[in-house]
């Protein structure tokens, strides 16, 4: 018992010592005064070398904290007690935070480089005239297939997923709006429909898909697809690009009839304090060179067209992640739904998951 206690105390002391040391180290590299910026971002969603570069150029030290879902980020900011200067919600969450008065409008006179952004990515319904948000990355929902099992070019439409060929073959991302969304699109409806009859029809159609569904999951889909466990998956383009970097047999398709287009956006929450640092950072990230470097590191599609032109030729020509304007025009963006409708989407989705 004595030995056990001694070991326990030793481990605790070691941890405390290390924690103190790392705290000292970050303190010495950073600035303890007002020259800081608190960025609340998704995990691994910015090139760390850009943060060093930003500090060298402007002297502001960036403290990064991370979240793993829009809802978690929303709850934490809403509860208060934080001092985040910038955060990165997806489009429907921008709308929700705006409605709940949790955002501070952007001061356009202090922003430089907004002209770099493509027209397709600005002035979207979730934030007219980009009063509150700057697009950070964008992407689509689509179909990933493994060319060892699926003939390239033979799977290009949502409706083909229902084919008997793909019995027990499809993995799907665990997200109510995306799954009901592609079912709605396959019937020519809007992904933002609030019509209960349409939603029920979309769910009934999904029920008929369930013999083809192998599993519904989240991050682990990447691993399963990379290992060839399943031939087909419905997932986001960002996830797809990560899978494809691990397995060259994988391909990503955005069905031509349309799909969802998502945006992650930089916004200033009500908790912000360091406004000089915020605008310095936004203008820094607007610079094509920096945006391009970030896009290459993350592998997602950048809305910054000048940065796009700096990307390697192969990336620019990649129709999987930078689809044609024709297709972009057919992509639909999610708008924020009332809590009742969110519940309705999720209840129907749960019914689909339980359907065998």
């Amino acid at each position, binding site marked *: 018992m004595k030995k056990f206690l001694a070991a326990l105390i030793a481990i605790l002391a070691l941890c405390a010592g290390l924690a103190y040391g790392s705290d000292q180290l970050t303190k010495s590299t950073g600035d303890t005064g007002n020259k800081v910026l608190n960025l609340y971002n998704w995990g691994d969603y910015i090139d760390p070398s850009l943060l060093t570069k930003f500090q060298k150029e402007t002297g502001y030290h960036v403290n990064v904290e991370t979240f793993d*879902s829009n809802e978690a980020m929303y709850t934490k900011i809403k509860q208060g007690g934080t001092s985040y200067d910038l955060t990165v919600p997806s489009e429907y969450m921008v709308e929700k935070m705006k409605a709940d008065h949790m955002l501070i409008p952007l001061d356009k006179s202090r922003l430089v480089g907004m002209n770099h952004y493509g027209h397709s990515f600005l002035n979207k319904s979730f934030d007219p005239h980009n009063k509150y948000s700057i697009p950070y990355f964008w992407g689509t929902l689509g179909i990933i297939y493994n060319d060892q099992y699926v003939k390239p070019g033979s799977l290009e439409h949502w409706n083909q997923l229902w084919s008997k060929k793909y019995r027990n073959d499809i993995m799907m991302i665990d997200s109510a709006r995306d799954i009901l969304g592609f079912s709605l699109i396959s019937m020519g409806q809007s992904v933002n429909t609030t019509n209960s009859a349409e939603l029920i029809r979309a769910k009934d159609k999904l029920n008929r898909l369930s013999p083809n569904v192998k599993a519904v999951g989240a991050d682990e889909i990447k*691993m399963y697809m990379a290992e*060839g466990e399943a031939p087909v998956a419905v997932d986001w383009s960002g996830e797809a690009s990560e899978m494809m970097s691990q397995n060259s047999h994988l391909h990503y398709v955005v069905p031509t009839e349309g799909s969802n287009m998502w945006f992650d956006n930089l916004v200033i929450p009500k908790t912000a304090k360091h406004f000089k640092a915020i605008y310095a950072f936004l203008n820094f990230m607007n610079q094509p060179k920096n945006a391009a470097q970030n896009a290459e590191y993350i592998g997602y599609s950048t809305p910054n067209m000048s940065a796009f032109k700096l990307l390697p030729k192969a990336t620019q020509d990649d129709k999987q992640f930078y689809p044609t304007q024709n297709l972009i025009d057919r992509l639909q963006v999610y708008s924020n739904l009332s809590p009742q409708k969110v519940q309705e989407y999720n209840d129907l989705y749960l*019914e689909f*998951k*339980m359907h065998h």
Partner: protein
Amino acid sequence: MKRNYRGLFFTPYVLWLAMFVIAPVALIIYYSFFNIHHHFTFANYQEFFSSGTYLTMTANSVLYAFLITLFAILISYPMALVISKLKHRDLWILLVILPTWINLLLKAYAFIGLLSHDGLVNDLFQFFGIPAQHMLFTDASFILVAAYIQIPFMILPIYNSLTDISDSYIRASRDLGATKWQTLTKVIIPMTMPGIKSGIQIVFIPSLSLFMLSRLIGGNKVITLGTAVEEHFLTTMNWGMGSTIGVVLIISMVIVMLLTNTKRKRRRTS
């Protein structure tokens, strides 16, 4: 003076109970009476008990938890019986407990490696000429992995109650002409009933809401109440409904406790 001291010793216990048992349960019950607009309502309960989705989900959860517990007993009892007869039984029981030192998530990922299409089990199958099977995302694989994870918690109480049985009982039963089988069913099993019951209590309840495993191994084809709780707290932010399901889980826990306890009391009084 003395009484004061006793009060002092009692405070940590009371504080612990109040902060970590009573307060959370009270909060869950409190939240379960509110809808998404923070208005007091009974609608959550009404919805739970009138919706086919939630009732099927409850039935599913109970069925899977029952199967997991059943398989855990079927494997654990003979194992505990054998181990309790071994020479170095303390070492063997340690080996059984060993897997509980490993994080649940790691074990789940290890099983993904074993059961996947190109995994070890399929390699073994192919070695014997059996074609590769799709084993992940099936009910069988979910129950297998869940039972594997629960087995140590089932073996321990059974093993303890087995080692508590004095050898003289078994000798007496032999002397009175009982066969080995009769000794097992008429003497050993009844005497280890308390161990089996506490094993059931420890295994059944967590099995009702194994949402991590139902996602990773079951591919969300097995939907249990845990899945719904996760969704209500993280996606729809309908904490009221999530809490209502929590209350239902607490009540079912109480029911299982009562069911596995009353019989023991009755036997004692008779």
